[in-house]
């Protein structure tokens, strides 16, 4: 009963409806382009979940989005808007690659652990800077996190090319990490590089919930996010909480590097992220800042990404750009949830009148 009271049915159903509506609207666009929406939808589902490999690729795309979604949501719970996940994940990924490249000879098991911690720390510091600026100097974290994205891109670019470049390649990328650093893949998914980053993401999502809803510090974070004056009046050091929150948010984003560097590429490739940090904002929004929601939302976005990749080949008139349209339609529908409330209220009124 208690659980039921806490998880209101509407809170769960609304996002589901919104997603369905968004997908429908998005697919109707393919009609304009001259395709059968149902046909496109079938290709989409088949390509995202049709085989073990397809499912695996969906999961590979979803994993970094879980991290960035959690990152944005964590800051949100502290009343902060983290638009800097993109920069934080770049710093994290670069740190993982640099550790892996420089410390080639670390023993197995220890090596990926060190690189993971390094990635989290680097992301955390990159998030902590705007946190510190906000808490101590009062400058707004939205501006600072955005600007630090550019700084991160510049720093990573410079360090990649001048400090630890891959001399065998024309591409801007670092040298390969030591073999001990690579984390294993699940054989189940065949060729798809589903690494241990996925269970790590799920574990982190659980930790996210436990920290925020079961620990004293987590309560303080949420209290500051809800009502800073009340939190301060209750003896909570809001500045400290702010810095900590953006540090943790940055660390979460930094963990993207684990899957991307230690799981797949084995090195840091400049510009490897197609905007994971920004899609993370949408993931957090869709997932209502709750860990389970974020995991599901990340899966959806991963599936859209993977599902649309086959459209180029299998249809004549639509390309994978439809993925962007679908994402945008889903986000629009989710963020205009007030509309659902309006419908629900109308329904209730009618019932009341008839009854």
């Amino acid at each position, binding site marked *: 009963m*208690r659980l039921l*009271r*806490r998880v209101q049915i509407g809170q769960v159903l609304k996002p589901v409806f919104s997603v369905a509506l968004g997908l429908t609207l998005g697919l109707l666009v393919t009609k304009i382009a001259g395709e059968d929406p149902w046909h496109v939808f079938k290709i989409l589902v088949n390509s995202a979940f049709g085989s073990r490999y397809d499912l695996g690729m969906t999961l590979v795309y979803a994993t970094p989005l879980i991290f960035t979604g959690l990152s944005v949501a964590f800051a949100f719970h502290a009343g902060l808007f983290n638009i800097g996940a993109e920069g934080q994940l770049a710093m994290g990924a670069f740190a993982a690659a640099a550790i892996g490249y420089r410390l080639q000879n670390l023993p197995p098991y220890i090596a990926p652990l060190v690189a993971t911690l390094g990635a989290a720390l680097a992301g955390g510091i990159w998030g902590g800077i705007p946190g510190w600026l906000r808490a101590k100097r009062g400058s707004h974290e939205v501006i600072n996190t955005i600007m630090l994205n550019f700084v991160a891109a510049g720093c990573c670019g410079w360090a990649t090319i001048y400090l630890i470049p891959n001399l065998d390649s024309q591409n801007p990328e670092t040298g390969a990490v030591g073999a001990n650093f690579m984390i294993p893949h699940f054989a189940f998914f065949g060729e798809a590089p589903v690494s241990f980053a996925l269970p790590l993401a799920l574990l982190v999502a659980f930790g996210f919930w436990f920290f925020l*809803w*079961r*620990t*004293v*510090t*987590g*309560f*303080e974070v*949420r*209290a500051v996010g*809800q*009502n800073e*004056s*009340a*939190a*301060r*009046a*209750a*003896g*909570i*050091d809001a500045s400290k909480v702010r810095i900590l929150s953006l540090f943790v948010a940055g660390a979460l984003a930094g963990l993207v590097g684990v899957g991307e560097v230690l799981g797949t590429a084995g090195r840091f490739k400049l510009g490897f992220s197609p905007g994971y940090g920004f899609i993370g904002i949408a993931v957090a929004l869709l997932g209502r800042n709750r860990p389970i929601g974020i995991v599901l939302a990340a899966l959806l976005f991963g599936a859209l990404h993977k599902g649309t990749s086959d459209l180029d080949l299998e249809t004549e008139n639509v390309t994978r750009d439809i993925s962007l349209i679908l994402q945008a339609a889903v986000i629009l529908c989710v963020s205009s949830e007030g509309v659902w409330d309006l419908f629900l*209220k109308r329904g*209730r009124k009618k019932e*009341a009148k008839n009854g």
Partner: protein
Amino acid sequence: MSFAVEFKALTKTFNGVAANAGISLKVKKGSIHAIVGENGAGKSTAMKMLYGTYQPDSGEIWVDGKLWGGRSKPWSSPSDAIHCGIGMVHQHFMLAGTHTVLDNILLGVEPIRKEWKYLPIPNFLKGIDRTRAAKRLKEISQQYGMAVDLKPSVETLSVGLQQRIEILKLLYREASILILDEPTAVLTPQETSELFLHLRKLRDEGKTILIITHKLKEVTSLADRVTVFRGGRVVGEREIQETNEEDLATLMVGRKVNLHREPPPLPALRKPVLTLKNVSLGTVRKLRNLNLQVRGGEIVGISGVEGNGQSELLDLLIHPQHYSKILSGEIEILGRPSNALTTREIKSSGVGVIPEDRHKEGLLLDRPVRESFLLGLHRNAPFSRRGIVSEEAIDKNAKKAIREYDIRPAHAYARCGALSGGNQQKWIIAREFHQTPELLIAAQPTRGVDVGAIEFIHQKIIDARMAGSGVLLVSSELDEILDLSDRILVFYEGEIVGEFNRGEASEKVLGLRMGGAADL
């Protein structure tokens, strides 16, 4: 007998909850009619329907013998109401602070200069005829005896004068029915009696006045007739001669209420829990040379019109670390100099705080109320152990609080913001009293709280005093101060301008001191 306003079985529902259920009400022309009731009793909803802000679900409103609105012909907005001679003074004034008094009064009904009248440009581009307006205003203010200077900008005026401008605004628009929502909430006693003088004058000139209030003393001294609301219904209507405060309070609450609660004689005083020596704050001198002491077992009341340094004092006591650079003098809280203490240390050493603005400084409005209950207790056993929050401990103690404080709704998972002011305040008190405070700082403890809860909260404060706590009570409600305080200090412009023992001060004396009168 003609009625200015008549409600017939008016019903208004919000989200399935009836805010007004079949309200019927008659207001005589040229009378002062008071509407009283607890928070959430539906007074404001009823008035907002008259003013056009809300539209009724069913029922009729008659104004001056004519059907006003109704379902067949709904009126749409307050501007219709103004057009028909109904005006409202809101609790929070609707004034443009940087504009002059004159411009505020004209806002929306600016007269156009004669020489511009026939120019072929839209009206809003034409010049305003301030001379003509000022002349008319002078006539109006003479007729009703409400003198006002038209030149200064509104923000420089006192609250009482701002209210007068709001009323003049309505008179300028030729309103014949005036609705005033809690008009005295922000006034000093002197300003209040001046306002009442004006309202009586307006009534004598034929205006009809509807006044929403929860201060019963004002009702009995001002109104001709009073309607009592409870739970969205009219539960009583009285001619003022045939009723008294106790009667009205009983109607409002639905049971017998003890309005004035005299604490038992002073127990033996204990050691000081709060001492201020020559405390001044900042270069703008928000606080000046304060000396005060609160000892265990006494209630020290601070009265004063809001904005005379009380808020600064409260903030200083709770967050001394923010003021270390601009503070002079010494503050001791529970025997320790406060400049070395953080907020958490102060709170955990045995200081309970009922904040001045509970929404801003006491509650997490969007979360289940149990989290507001936990706020501040979250680091203490049994609520948490080794950094992990104990859900069972919260539930258990929340249940206990609900029983002990008679909180409604009786479960801790309701969204805090959905609770009534009284129940929110009870949660705060349950939290702050969880460990019996040695020093209780109670700021406006009964603001926006209904009569039944006021009685309860006052009892809790008296209980704390009897148990040996020292209480610093800051309130702008004179009755509260006079009833509860063992000693009364009067604040004026950041200074203590008067000190009285129990029984020495009357409302009149306090009121004069609060207004800055040096000698009596």
